[in-house]
């Protein structure tokens, strides 16, 4: 069976990758990472694709542990989807590493990197495959530790070490919460198997359901980067090496969402509308806070990290919509919500990986990530610029790239809340919709700034002036990811059925019929659609290409309920064809009109100054300053320095001003937590006073307490 072969090959390749990395000389380790990592990625992708598209689930029992039951792994369609994303992101990241890791040669241990890299790969795959609590938590812990160690790779930088510790601490907190959720479920089921948990979860009361939801949502939410526990994310992602950041943002955040999905869609389907509303609000706030800080951030990688928070917020909003619709008894709408969330998740993995690899390439060549010191890189690095542009367009939800399709779908799912009866619920949906719309606007600003300040204009530093294009091993993976972004955007009618099928395994495969009606095929499905439905779609031209294009159609269509009979339609597939044709026509027409004209290249008009210096052009800070000013009440920057230096009383020679914002979540959550925890720790520290007799009393007290407890229980 191809799945089994793929999975076994994958684990063997990971293990051998780690081993070969330890044995080969340091300078060859990048190649080990590249080759064996790529091979492992191919293996797991094949297995996952087989599971997702063909549909055969593969289950296996691993060892049996006393007291803990058997350890299971299972590759069903949902796992297949996540594993496919893992494989397809790991592949370019591995090839990228061949060139990128050279900068660490001689500074840090490349062998350690290789081992950790493959350990991370294997543990991520195991998390997704796990089907019982023990294997899930073991793999989760291993993944956490491996990712923290990789984030901490450049350990000589203080900031990196602090970021790693914070990630570890908050990650462990989240793991504990998630573990508690599992334990509550296991307690009800009496077993640690996901099957058993699923069966027993039906009988849980609302109190237990809320507890499980909150613990798993916020526990896995830490890993997914949702407010209020995402203070580690903007520190950890920039601190890691670029290929690791791509993995962190592209894959590990997905694992948080995966955990939420497993618990709240598979094991314990949401049955309380409140849980969905919590998810919606958390999603909306995460999205807004994330993009606000991304827009005002100048470090390219920190900006991308904040943007990841934003995207996870959008995914969570889609999930929230799905939860609410499930609880309200509208499984079709729930399917749409979940498909929207998964679509955005998939797209995000690819374009975020692309953007991080792009930022890493720029850092590799120029040596700085600060947008205020870049500029004009489109000339020496045209391919990097092109791929970064495609990534930016995707993340800013520009037609016809992938981000457009998934954001459109998410907003559509939110709009369908009009069919719900309860007004407070509709208000929450409206609030979420408004927040996501504002977020979309800020996202465009943010990535216009990123691309324009980074690649256009004049170089703002000597290093930017002297940059050259990166080697092909770094540029080609970005190109592949860019093509994937384009494909995912242009073929939504093929992607949506695949995603919907992955949800079938968790009981909700309705989205396909709802979003991509089988309009092309002359099968029985066609006649099941109501007649006016069919005529409306005919008017929209939904059947164009019927005879020669495979699949269900090229237009994403769906129709509201009987009391809300509006049609939502989108076709990036047709749109991109029209776009290409229009571009070709315009280019041809321009060439023809200007065929006899002489084209002169002149210098930019700058008001007649004798020389335009880089310090006379807009910086990233200046570009995003209006956003900073408008949202000043939220950002509340504190002034670090504001001095004026005068000579001879009147001659001002220097004005120095620095203002730094403290992150809103830090102010509201992290600093508060830290203060309280430190206070508590100091309280506890009073126990360590050094008096031996009291220590003996502690031992006695614990014994007595344990005895009493055992008598009671």
């Amino acid at each position, binding site marked *: 069976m191809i799945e089994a072969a793929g999975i076994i090959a994958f684990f063997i390749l990971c293990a051998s990758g780690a081993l070969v990395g330890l044995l080969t000389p340091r300078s060859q380790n990048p190649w080990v990472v590249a080759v064996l990592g790529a091979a492992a990625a191919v293996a797991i992708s094949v297995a996952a694709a087989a599971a997702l598209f063909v549909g055969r689930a593969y289950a296996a029992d691993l060892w049996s542990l006393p007291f803990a039951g058997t350890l299971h792994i299972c590759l069903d369609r949902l796992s297949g989807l996540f594993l496919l994303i893992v494989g397809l992101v790991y592949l370019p990241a591995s090839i990228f590493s061949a060139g990128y890791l050279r900068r660490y040669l001689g500074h840090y241990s490349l062998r350690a990197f290789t081992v950790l890299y493959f350990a991370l790969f294997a543990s991520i795959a195991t998390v997704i495959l796990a089907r019982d609590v023990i294997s899930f938590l073991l793999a989760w812990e291993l993944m956490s530790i491996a990712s923290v160690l990789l984030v901490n790779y450049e350990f000589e930088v203080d900031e990196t070490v602090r970021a790693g510790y914070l990630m570890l601490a908050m990650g462990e907190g989240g793991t504990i919460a998630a573990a508690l959720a599992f334990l509550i479920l296991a307690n009800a089921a009496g077993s640690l198997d996901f099957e058993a948990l699923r069966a027993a979860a039906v009988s849980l009361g609302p109190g237990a359901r809320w507890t499980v939801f909150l613990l798993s949502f916020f526990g896995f939410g830490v890993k997914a980067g949702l407010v209020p526990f995402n203070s580690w994310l903007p520190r950890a992602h920039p601190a890691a090496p670029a290929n690791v950041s791509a993995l962190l943002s592209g894959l590990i955040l997905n694992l948080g969402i995966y955990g939420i999905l497993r618990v709240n869609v598979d094991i314990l389907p949401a049955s309380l509308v409140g849980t969905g509303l919590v998810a919606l609000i958390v999603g909306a706030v995460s999205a807004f806070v994330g993009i606000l800080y991304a827009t005002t951030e*100048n470090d390219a990688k920190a900006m991308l990290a904040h943007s990841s928070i934003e995207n996870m917020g959008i995914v969570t909003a889609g999930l929230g919509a799905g939860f609410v619709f499930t609880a309200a008894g509208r499984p079709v709408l729930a399917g749409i919500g979940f498909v929207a969330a998964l679509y955005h998740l998939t797209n995000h993995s690819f374009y975020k990986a692309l953007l991080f690899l792009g930022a890493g390439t720029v850092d590799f060549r120029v040596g700085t990530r600060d947008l*205020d010191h870049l500029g004009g890189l489109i000339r020496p690095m045209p391919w990097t610029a092109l791929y970064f542009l495609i990534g930016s367009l995707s993340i800013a939800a520009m037609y016809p790239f992938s981000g457009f399709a998934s954001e459109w779908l998410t907003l559509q799912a939110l709009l369908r809340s009009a069919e719900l009866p309860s007004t407070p619920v509709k208000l929450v949906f409206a609030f979420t919709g408004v927040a996501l719309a504002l977020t979309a606007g800020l996202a465009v600003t943010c990535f216009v700034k990123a691309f324009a300040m980074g690649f256009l204009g004049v170089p703002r530093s000597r290093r930017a002036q002297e940059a050259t294009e990166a080697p092909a091993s770094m540029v080609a993976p970005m190109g592949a990811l860019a093509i994937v972004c384009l494909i995912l955007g242009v073929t939504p009618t093929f992607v949506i059925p695949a995603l919907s099928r992955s949800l079938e395994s968790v009981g909700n495969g309705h989205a396909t019929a709802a979003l991509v009606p089988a309009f092309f095929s002359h099968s029985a499905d066609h006649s099941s659609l109501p007649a006016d439905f069919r005529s409306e779609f005919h008017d929209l031209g939904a059947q164009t290409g019927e005879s020669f294009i495979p699949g269900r159609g090229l237009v994403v269509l769906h129709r509201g309920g009987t009391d809300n009979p509006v049609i939502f339609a989108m076709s990036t597939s047709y749109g991109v064809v029209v776009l290409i044709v229009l571009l070709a026509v315009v280019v041809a027409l321009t060439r023809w009109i200007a065929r006899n004209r002489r084209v002169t290249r002149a210098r930019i008009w*700058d*008001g*007649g*100054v*004798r*020389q*335009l*210096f880089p*310090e*006379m*052009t*807009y*910086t*990233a*800070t*200046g*570009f*995003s*300053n*209006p956003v*900073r*000013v408008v949202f000043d009440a939220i950002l509340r920057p504190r002034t670090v320095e504001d001095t004026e230096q005068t*000579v*001879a*009383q*009147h*001659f*001002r*020679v*220097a*004005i*120095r*001003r*620095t203002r730094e914002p403290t992150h809103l979540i830090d102010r509201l959550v992290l600093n508060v937590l830290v203060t309280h925890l430190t206070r508590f720790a100091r309280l506890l520290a009073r126990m360590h006073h050094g008096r031996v007799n009291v220590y003996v009393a502690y031992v006695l007290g614990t014994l007595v307490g344990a005895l009493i407890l055992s008598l009671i229980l």
Partner: protein
Amino acid sequence: MHLRIAEQISEQWATNIRVHRDRRGLRYEVQTGSEALKALCTWIVATQELAFGGLVVEQDTSEWLLRYLFYGPEACRVDVLVRQPLAHPQFPSIGDAVHAADWHEREAEDLFGIVFEGHPRLGDFVLHDDAWQEGLAPMRKSFNGREAPIQRTPNADWRPDRIVHAPGAFGMPVGPVYSGVAESAHFLLETVGEDVIRAQPRFFYKYRAVEKTAEGRDAMDALLLAERFNGITAFAHGLGFAQSLEAIGGLEVPPRALTLRVLFAELERLRHHTGAIEGICESTALVVAASQAAILEEELLRLSGELTGHRYLFGLVIYGGLSRDFADADLCTAVARAQGILRRLLALERKLTRTSSFLDRLEQVGIVTPEEAHAFGLVGPIARASGLARDLRVVQPYGGYGDYAFEVPNEREGDGYARLRILFAEARQSMRIIEQAFARLPGGSVRSANAGLPAGAALGWTEAPLGAAFHWVRVDARGAVQRYRIVPPSFVNWHAFHLAAEAFAFQDFPIILASFGLSISENDR
């Protein structure tokens, strides 16, 4: 008080003082050495209510002669003279104590090669470092001002001086070619994105070396230069130059000419202020008001053109009087029309003060505090809007102004709205003077009979529409100009412009520029 100046100076500094008294007022000429210069100048400004007027640098056959001009109320003037041998052009800088002298010293360094020790920012002022080489010193007698030097080695590594150090700070370049119809000057607005933190102007793109070109010309032809280096206040500057020549020649200008000169000077002031008001209305995009002010200005230009033959009053003032006489009937019609124009101007003022959207853009915008005005020695309507009620027509009366009854308006806020109010108030006072001049117009000729010109040097001054203008002229025995120094009011006031433009948004910058209403051609000469 002033009579004791001589005693106090000789007590404290034991220097050589000469006292001159003539019909123009009381003048002290103090010779001092370099060591005492700064203390003396500081003392004069701090304790004697005198203001720094300008610095005149002259190159003699064997020495440098620097003349620091101070002027004050009751027609009192003090000239402080310092000399150094030609081979050692080093003088102490007084710019930190008398900040108004800052730009004068920078200009002298650029044009003469004189070093002012202790000045923190010499160079790259009049002659831009990225256009000319260092050490050119074109105002020296040895430099042939008629042709450009063959060798030009500008500084290829020149970069603008950055004052703001903040992450992400940059400087927006404005000019020298900018806006629709605007004079050429460059402003570097240093900012982090919204507010202008520091505005750094760069002038002298329009430097025509008028002072150098005048050297060697016949004094009557140099009068043409005085009129034409700033065409919109041509009459005032021509008058200042003519008064300087008349002081050298000891010439009495006939009373009819004096009265007509006053009338035309005030007519020019009225027209100039109407144009400034139009500029302010246009900058705030209140188009109807701008059009109405433009109508009034065009009517005043046509009035001037019809009466004198030239819209900007060129060719009217000459050494010893005016170049032509005017029929009383023509003058009467002109004055009546001017009165009508002023009535409509004041109606415009009433409408403007009732338009809150217009006032919003001027109030509290572009503030120059009274302390700053005093420290920078500002002159003109801008100084009067910031509490300095100094007007040369009152403190140093010339040309018969002492006989006219008029007020000098004064405001304290120093913002754009205060400057606008000053413009309207001065327009009203100008009309008042015109009416008085016309009412008391005597008969007689309009130019002196024997208009010979001996050798000598003197200072002539006028209260030009933009402020106090000083013209120092030295002629030789053949009537040719040896040295012509102009201290234009715009030069003094542009010095303080950056104070007004800081801490305001970009959008306020054109409004602040218009509310100052200064002239760049006057500054650049």
